């Protein structure tokens, strides 16, 4: 990928302070410092500022709406004149220089949405075809790859979740968004899927049958139970379109007044014509043969690719106004120029069969592989009935020739190939299918002479036995003759399918070419020595395959358009890097088995006609097959968001990450905390029992922007009537390595108790606790209030939870206040009040070991009592829960202290009391 991933220019910026993280602590520090007049760079990894607080239902003990009190602070942060807030960005590293200042490398991740013009309408999200768990709703509901983080997001701008290029799409030489049409098919959007392929090429039905599907070779699902049948799914959408008779639905620019001539109507020429016509060019194709289609129409047998399919695809091109002349060879390129064509594309392919180069090749009964196939496709008589045929070669043309010969009634067909079966260049499916149709293989033999009878007709093929030596430049083992080991294969017909070349000397004196007729053209632009002439496809690359030829046509059209419009000849391939399949698979802990689509090919040992051998997929099969897609890159590039967006150009899938270097005088680390993963307490069944949820999940269920229509249990959508809380899940618990109290779990549980009793007046709430820690102002009163409202508090550890067949949950616990009895009670829903853990991202901001952590891996404050917020690095301060569990009020106080520390640090520098240099104005 020569033009992809260009490194963008790095911007350099100066600020007084860098604040990392925009939770309540980060926002508070940034706002206080901004109010003091310091210029603050705030970097937030999520697409919105606000951290966790904005996701809560209400706050304790006031029961103020979390959104109501968060959003003003979020808006102030974003709009503060002294704060530059970079959301959906990350700090890659911070280093301290000799002058005491800091250099931070920051990446602004591409949103693929223009923040200036996005209106937050969510139409992209509604149209998106990829569903993923919504991390902002604690995985209780789906979001889309295109999404706005949450309804109160600030900025309320969409972001498209793209992890790179999906392996299938990346592998396609034609540049077809395979992942995109998979996601559209599983959504039942077959016409849209068809149009997505049409964005690349008009040859949808052709590729759906005759492509060798490099996409399938890269499908991540292939490492599970089997790849998706991507090619057959393309055929499915082609079939649906053809049966439906709908318009193509493709956007075509108005005529631009320019004309392009294309020489050759194979996949390269047809695709180039399609792309240029869509850009408004008047295109005329010159085809030397009596029918258009090149190799598609004149070589690939109808049992693989019916003529009607190719003709329908060519009709797509004609539908755009492209003129196709047949029996119209071009020898004089200058004449086309003189006729008024602004550019010419030569895409004449490789139609000439390579000769065997052995004596007797001129005997009656020796045919070239492509010549043979062409005659059959043009219904010209080729009498093989009852004759013995030897096909020399091991490529796809050889397989096509052999299987065609079987259908013409040959008594026997033998493929003679100089290497072994594993080294054959033919697609393994073609070779396997040939064998199933009765084709025999004579391997490791090479022709020495075509033998003949007295009338000059072929009577046999004399061959030498071969052995495989060392690998050659292609990696395949080089065949070597075995001296004295000869054999004769009796036959009446020899078909030479050992290679293909362009017509030698076709444009002699006009274009440069090799001795084999391969045309010279720039590897990137496909421009030839004549600036107005471009050459592409097999004519410049040698024989390849359809998808490569299609990709060549797209490239040539792109470059011709760039050249004719006076732009730089670049920008064709800007794919994102391919995603790492191992990372894709690691997104899930387990994968259920999903049956691959069964083979639909019907083969018989003695085929008698050219009926298509592969059956189409049913709609049910297609939906199920596409539904196996793993969404490797998350976004499928189906382009539905682009179509749905009401603002032209707002969504730009070509956007790329931007990097900047920030020089700052101080840093505030406000990276917050992580929640304890509740599945680490397996006795509570989280992850196994669907009606065991976490406190954060309950907060989402209670929030105004909740994922469900009300408080329902996730196991079956039932309104719960008996709800239990298990406090200290993962905190104050040496068994999980966390002896610390998380400080706010008791209080958020009490808050939720009160909210639940308001929302579900008939519900019974029971809290299993060790001791309630309610030390703040009005906290204990809040606790007493919950008890007075009817919540029951049972002192004692919960030993374990089991699930009944109905999805209810049986808690086994100690009831200390009733004599320490071991009791069991059944509930509809259990909430685990999970504790907090340190966010280890903080230490990765700096060189290894530079930022000291405390014994529990929170950011250390060496003088916590007297110098809160100061860390082990002079000029680096910590705010909020990054240094240990704090509730919202304490986080704000701590963030204010950190801001004061920063101010003191910067002012001491200004006063010459410390070493950091003054911030440039």
């Amino acid at each position, binding site marked *: 990928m020569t033009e992809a991933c260009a490194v963008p220019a790095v911007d350099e910026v100066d600020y007084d302070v860098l604040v990392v993280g925009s939770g309540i602590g980060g926002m508070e520090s940034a706002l206080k410092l901004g109010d003091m007049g310091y210029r603050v760079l705030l970097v937030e990894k999520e697409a919105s500022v606000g951290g966790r607080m904005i996701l809560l239902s209400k706050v304790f003990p006031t029961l103020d709406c979390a959104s109501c009190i968060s959003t003003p602070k979020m808006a102030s942060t974003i709009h503060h004149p002294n704060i530059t807030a970079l959301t959906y960005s990350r700090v890659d590293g911070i280093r301290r220089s000799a002058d005491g200042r800091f250099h931070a490398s920051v990446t602004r991740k591409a949103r693929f949405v223009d923040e200036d013009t996005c209106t937050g309408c969510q139409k992209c999200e509604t149209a998106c075809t990829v*569903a*993923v768990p919504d991390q902002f709703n604690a995985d209780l509901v789906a979001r889309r790859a295109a999404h706005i983080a949450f309804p109160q997001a600030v900025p309320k701008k969409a972001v498209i979740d793209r992890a790179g290029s999906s392996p299938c799409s990346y592998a396609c030489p034609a540049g077809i968004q395979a992942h995109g049409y998979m996601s559209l098919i599983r959504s039942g959007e077959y016409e849209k899927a068809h149009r997505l392929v049409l964005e690349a090429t008009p040859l949808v039905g052709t590729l759906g049958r005759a492509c060798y599907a490099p996409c399938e070779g890269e499908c991540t699902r292939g490492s599970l139970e089997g790849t998706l049948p991507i090619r057959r799914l393309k055929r499915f959408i082609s079939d649906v379109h053809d049966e439906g008779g709908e318009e193509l639905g493709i956007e075509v620019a108005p005529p631009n007044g320019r004309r392009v001539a294309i020489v050759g109507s194979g996949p390269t020429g047809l695709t180039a014509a399609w792309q240029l016509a869509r850009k408004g060019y008047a295109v005329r194709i010159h085809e030397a043969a009596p029918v258009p289609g090149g190799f598609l129409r004149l070589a690939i047998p109808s049992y693989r690719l019916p003529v009607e399919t190719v003709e329908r695809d060519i009709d797509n091109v004609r539908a755009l106004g492209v003129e196709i002349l047949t029996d119209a060879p071009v020898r004089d390129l200058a004449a086309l120029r003189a006729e008024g064509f602004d550019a010419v594309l030569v895409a004449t392919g490789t139609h000439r069969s390579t000769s065997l180069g052995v004596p007797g090749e001129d005997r009656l009964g020796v045919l070239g592989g492509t010549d043979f196939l062409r005659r059959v496709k043009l219904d010209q008589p080729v009498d093989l009935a009852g004759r013995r045929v030897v096909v020399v070669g091991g490529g796809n043309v050889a397989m096509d020739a052999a299987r065609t010969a079987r259908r013409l009634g040959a008594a026997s067909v033998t493929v003679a190939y100089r290497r072994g079966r594993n080294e054959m260049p033919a697609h393994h499916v073609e070779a396997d299918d040939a064998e199933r149709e009765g084709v025999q293989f004579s391997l490791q033999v090479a022709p020495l002479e075509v033998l003949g009878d007295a009338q000059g007709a072929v009577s046999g093929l004399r061959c030498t036995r071969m052995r495989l030596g060392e690998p050659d430049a292609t990696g395949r083992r080089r065949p070597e003759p075995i001296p004295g080991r000869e054999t004769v294969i009796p036959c009446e017909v020899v078909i030479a399918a050992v290679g293909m070349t362009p017509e030698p000397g076709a444009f002699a004196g006009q274009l440069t070419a090799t001795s084999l007729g391969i045309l010279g053209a720039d590897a990137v632009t496909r421009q030839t020595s004549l600036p107005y002439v471009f050459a592409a496809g097999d004519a410049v690359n040698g024989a390849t395959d359809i998808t490569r030829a299609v990709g060549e046509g797209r490239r040539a059209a792109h470059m011709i358009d760039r050249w004719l419009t006076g732009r730089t000849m670049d920008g064709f391939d800007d794919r994102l890097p391919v995603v790492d399949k191992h990372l894709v698979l690691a997104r899930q802990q387990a994968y259920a088995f999903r049956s691959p689509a069964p083979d639909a090919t019907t083969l018989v040992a003695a085929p008698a006609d050219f009926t298509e051998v592969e059956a189409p997929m049913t709609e049910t099969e297609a939906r199920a097959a596409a539904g196996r897609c793993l969404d490797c890159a998350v976004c499928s590039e189906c382009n539905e968001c682009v179509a749905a967006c009401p603002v032209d150009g707002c969504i730009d899938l070509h956007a790329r990450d931007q990097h900047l270097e920030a020089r700052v005088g101080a840093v505030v680390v406000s990276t917050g905390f992580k929640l304890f993963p509740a599945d680490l307490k397996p006795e509570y069944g989280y992850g196994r029992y669907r009606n065991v949820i976490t406190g954060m999940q309950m907060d989402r269920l209670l929030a105004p922007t909740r994922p469900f229509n009300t408080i329902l249990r996730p196991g*079956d959508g039932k309104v719960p009537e008996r709800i239990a809380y298990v406090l200290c899940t993962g905190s104050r618990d040496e068994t999980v390595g966390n002896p610390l109290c998380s400080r706010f779990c008791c209080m958020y549980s009490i808050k939720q108790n009160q909210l639940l009793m308001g929302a579900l007046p008939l519900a019974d709430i029971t809290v299993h606790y060790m001791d309630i820690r309610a030390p703040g102002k009005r906290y204990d009163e809040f606790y007493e209030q919950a008890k007075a409202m009817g919540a029951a508090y049972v002192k004692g550890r919960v030993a374990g939870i089991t699930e009944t067949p109905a999805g209810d949950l049986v808690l086994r616990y100690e009831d200390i206040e009733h004599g320490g009895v071991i009791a069991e009670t059944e509930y509809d829903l259990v909430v685990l009040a999970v504790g907090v853990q340190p966010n280890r991202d903080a230490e990765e901001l700096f060189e290894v070991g530079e930022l000291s952590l405390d014994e529990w891996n929170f950011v250390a404050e060496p003088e916590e009592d007297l110098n809160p917020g100061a860390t082990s690095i002079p000029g680096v301060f910590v705010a909020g829960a990054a240094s240990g569990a704090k509730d919202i009020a304490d986080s704000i106080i701590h963030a204010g202290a950190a801001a004061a520390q920063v101010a003191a640090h910067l002012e001491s520098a200004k006063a010459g009391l410390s070493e950091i240099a003054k911030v440039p104005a």
Partner: protein
Amino acid sequence: MRTTNRDVREVIREEPVMRSRILAVLADGPLTVPEIAAAIDAPTHEVVLWVMGMRRYGWLAEIKGSPVDGYFQYQRTGRVS
């Protein structure tokens, strides 16, 4: 019908595939999650994820009012693509 718990990401990924099946069983009127699950032969916890995803993006809506035997009913909204 599957009885094992599948990864939530895997279940959610199937929402677009299951959408038409769920809309089809709701063609004759609103149903609860267990009723939908029975009709399409899928686990209730997976149906919750699909129904709530479809509700979020406008394919379904709950019948307002009190739940019936603890369950809300969901109906089609008319969104078709």
